[in-house]
């Protein structure tokens, strides 16, 4: 069964901490994405990557960075966590092959910053 795995389902961190959210996919997908999901706002794109060591800003990159050192792994980094980063974070991956078959999602990480 193909999978996108997010390392934590729930996470509680303190304001000012550096936070790493990890995402691993086993489908050999080229593209990987980080979204945050908030009530009434839907899913908003933070960062995405089309290839190893490549990254592109999404719609709301402020306060975040990413790392993609290996094809299967895409990490989201909160350099100094703040309470307004309390949210659900979703990782997804997709293929760059012919056609577009949408994303495969991880099960999400609910992050609370206190």
């Amino acid at each position, binding site marked *: 069964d193909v999978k996108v795995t997010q390392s934590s389902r729930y996470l509680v961190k303190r304001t000012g901490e550096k936070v790493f959210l990890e995402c691993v996919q086993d489908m050999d997908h080229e593209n990987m994405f980080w979204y945050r999901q908030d009530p009434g706002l839907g*899913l908003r794109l933070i960062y995405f990557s089309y290839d190893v060591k490549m990254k592109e800003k999404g719609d709301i990159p402020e306060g975040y960075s990413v790392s993609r050192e290996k094809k299967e792994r895409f990490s989201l980094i909160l350099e100094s966590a703040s309470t307004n980063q309390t949210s659900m974070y979703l990782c997804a991956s997709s293929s760059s092959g012919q056609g577009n078959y949408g994303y495969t999602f991880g099960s999400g990480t609910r992050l609370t910053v206190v």
Partner: protein
Amino acid sequence: AQTVTQSQPEMSVQEAETVTLSCTYDTSESNYYLFWYKQPPSRQMILVIRQEAYKQQNATENRFSVNFQKAAKSFSLKISDSQLGDTAMYFCAPNTGANSKLTFGKGITLSVRP
């Protein structure tokens, strides 16, 4: 930036009845793909149905079908014979940009009543 509008934040339907969820979007592209995703309380995002914009025939997957009106930029999801397991949040997500990047609507919460 591309916009996706799901104007109904919540809907409710009786079990076994039919419900239609609406979605409109904007794009200047002529060839693209559109998706509906379902997010049940478990939080796992699941692909429901996919439509290729250059195909005139509306996509169907078992009880799920779409009404795709390309000129009107409308992409509604019809769920027939609603089941309790259809209770979830539903997101419309067209891809009209490069590299399979999806833009999500704010979602609609569907409740199926027994």
